[in-house]
């Protein structure tokens, strides 16, 4: 008997290279590790509660509504026991109600929209998320700037893709900056090019001409690569300061072509920020990933793998408590509010009634390491979970607008 896990990830389309495929690789690796009992303690037992894990990976392309159908098929037709995955916020928002309706344990792994637990599913039972919200990411970026660049930043502008992720990212960043650095002005004309347009010449001109000197961008994947290539050729990185909230998704691939001195984020303790962290699980993951795929794991690999670690923790814990293979309800009970060991130390399901993880968030500045032949980060600051997340029960938007009261830094 196996535990069947449905795992949506982008296998086709533009989100596949930067997110979908690394995520899939991470899943395949961690599932292998789990099934063979290769992982270090405390995850050195085989399978989920002793049963082998079977990951049914399927394509997340095509929009939220389509994903609702796919999830229904996976649950009702292929009888999966749980869903672990989901990259796009749109998919998370679209499927959260369905997960509750189908009573299927769902661990969302990459999507960052606060709407999932703050609007759509205020009283979650089956849905969990094992990554910080996008808000945390942008708040920590603002905190980093406030801490490290006082006086250097004269104004902020942004270029973000014209969809929910980009819009939310810019808004959160702007609000956090307004609280932390009230005398820094924000532009009235942020750029919102169409997603996947690939051609940013005009926007680069507009950014070059802007009087604000810090550019915020939540670009990822191919858009980010194209933007970096075009901006480098036009000297934009020499003119402006940059904060790329998920820039790490392309940093390894671009190698030396990735500009130095740029602030990049990974939305938590993943990827580049933990590449040298000696914790045993992390060391195993880094080593095996590089061995299997010939490149270092970036954030989506970590984030999906972390979702599976949460799954393993909950199944094992529930089995221990129940004394037999657990029911979904028992697994949920074990995961709710749990603190479990992840790649670098423990993480806690600390928000939204124990369904939303809170982790630390890390920021630093890129610099090329000749010895390793890899981009690395310097000047790294680790912001503890309480510093970048709202207190329990407070909505992110209210918290941001209210000046981030109650933050524990």
């Amino acid at each position, binding site marked *: 008997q196996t535990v069947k896990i449905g795992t949506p990830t982008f296998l*086709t389309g533009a989100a596949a*290279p930067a997110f979908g495929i690394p995520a899939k690789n991470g899943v395949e690796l961690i599932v292998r590790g789990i099934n063979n009992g290769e992982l270090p303690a405390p995850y050195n037992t085989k399978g989920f509660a002793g049963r082998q894990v079977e990951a049914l990976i399927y394509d997340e392309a095509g929009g939220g509504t389509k994903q609702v159908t796919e999830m229904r098929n996976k649950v009702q037709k292929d009888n999966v026991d749980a869903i672990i995955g989901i990259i796009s916020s749109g998919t998370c928002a679209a499927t959260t109600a369905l997960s509750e309706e189908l009573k299927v344990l769902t661990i969302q792994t990459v999507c960052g929209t606060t709407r999932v637990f703050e609007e759509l599913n205020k009283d979650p039972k089956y849905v969990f998320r094992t990554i910080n919200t996008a808000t945390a990411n942008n708040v920590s970026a603002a905190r980093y700037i406030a801490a490290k660049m006082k006086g250097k930043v004269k104004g902020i502008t942004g270029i973000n893709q014209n969809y929910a992720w980009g819009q939310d990212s810019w808004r959160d960043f702007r609000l956090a900056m307004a609280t932390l650095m009230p005398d820094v002005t924000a532009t009235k004309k942020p750029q919102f090019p*169409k997603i996947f347009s690939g*051609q940013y010449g005009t926007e680069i001109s507009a950014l*070059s001409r802007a009087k604000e000197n810090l550019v915020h961008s939540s670009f990822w994947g*191919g858009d980010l690569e194209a933007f970096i290539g075009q901006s480098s*050729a*036009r000297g934009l990185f020499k003119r402006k300061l940059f904060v790329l909230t998920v820039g790490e998704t392309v940093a390894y691939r671009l190698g030396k072509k990735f500009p130095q001195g740029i602030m990049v984020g990974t939305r938590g303790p993943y990827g580049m920020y933990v590449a040298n962290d000696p914790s045993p699980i992390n060391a195993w993951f880094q080593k095996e990933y590089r061995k299997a795929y010939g490149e270092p794991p970036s954030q989506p690999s970590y984030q999906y793998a972390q979702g599976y670690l949460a799954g393993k923790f909950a199944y094992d814990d529930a089995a221990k408590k129940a004394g037999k293979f657990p029911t979904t309800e028992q697994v949920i009970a074990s995961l709710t509010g749990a603190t479990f060991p992840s790649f670098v130390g423990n993480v806690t399901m600390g928000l939204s009634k124990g369904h939303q993880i809170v982790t630390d968030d890390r920021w630093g500045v890129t610099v090329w390491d000749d010895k390793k032949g890899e981009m690395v980060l310097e000047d790294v600051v680790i912001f503890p979970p309480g510093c970048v997340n709202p207190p329990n029960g407070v909505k992110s938007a209210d918290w941001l607008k209210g000046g981030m009261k109650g933050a524990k830094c």
Partner: protein
Amino acid sequence: MDFELLLVILVDGLVYSSYLFLVAVGLTVIFGVQKVLNVTHGAFYAFGAYLTAYLIGLWAKGGLPDAGGFFLIFISAAILGVVLGVIIERGLLRFLYDRDEHIAVLATFAAFLVLEDVILLIWGTDPYLAFQPMSLLGSSEIAGLVFDNYSLTMIVLTFVVAFVLWYGLNRTQFGKILLAVIFDREVSMAMGINVTKVFLITFIIGTFLGALGGAYHAPIISVQPGIGVEVIVLAFAVVVIGGMGSIPGALIGAIVVGISRAAAVHLFPEVELFVIYGIMALVLIFRPEGLFAPIKARKI
């Protein structure tokens, strides 16, 4: 309004127009002759970009000089023009000339879906980067801003392509023969024109142009799955604005859209997304057949 801004809008606009034109011109050529709205055009673009990026990668690995990149761009487009052009025209389109034009659109749409996955099978999901030709050309300063020369060469390429095509169609015998084929295949055959050959040649030219669009952009974008989809819709819009099948139309259409878009990005970034469709709707309301409408035969 300050003069510098106007200049920047003009340059940005022309660069974007060039992009649009190179992307759209192959589509309009094929539509003009074969009356097929060729959705596989998007895949030609993607193939062009992939092959170029891939070859430039190999080239660089072999330690050969970066300037070879330009050679590879045209070689890739030419190879694809012949290979894909022949496969699609001989293998698919020729069965569709006698059928409804919508059916042809759908068949090419289906072929497009298939080709997208063929790309995936050949090149995988990893993006390809080929910045070498762009880095090689360096940059220049206009109106206080840095522009990369590679994008500026795109403007030149656009005008060269537009002129060559316009000349070929309007000033040469081949162009006039094309007009005959466009008008009536049966009569053309009766007049000794090898219509099969003419169709194949134009389709190869159209495919070459589509692939060239992709090949020439490969150095400035990240070549990754899905780039073809975006291109089709843009190309359709440009072609419809200009008048389907008209080369000058595609050029003017691209310029109108490119400059309006540049102005929008600089002045009102909020409306950027709607510029192209807005212009399309406006043009069609006032000139239903596009800016350059084809001549029609009398009916009664």
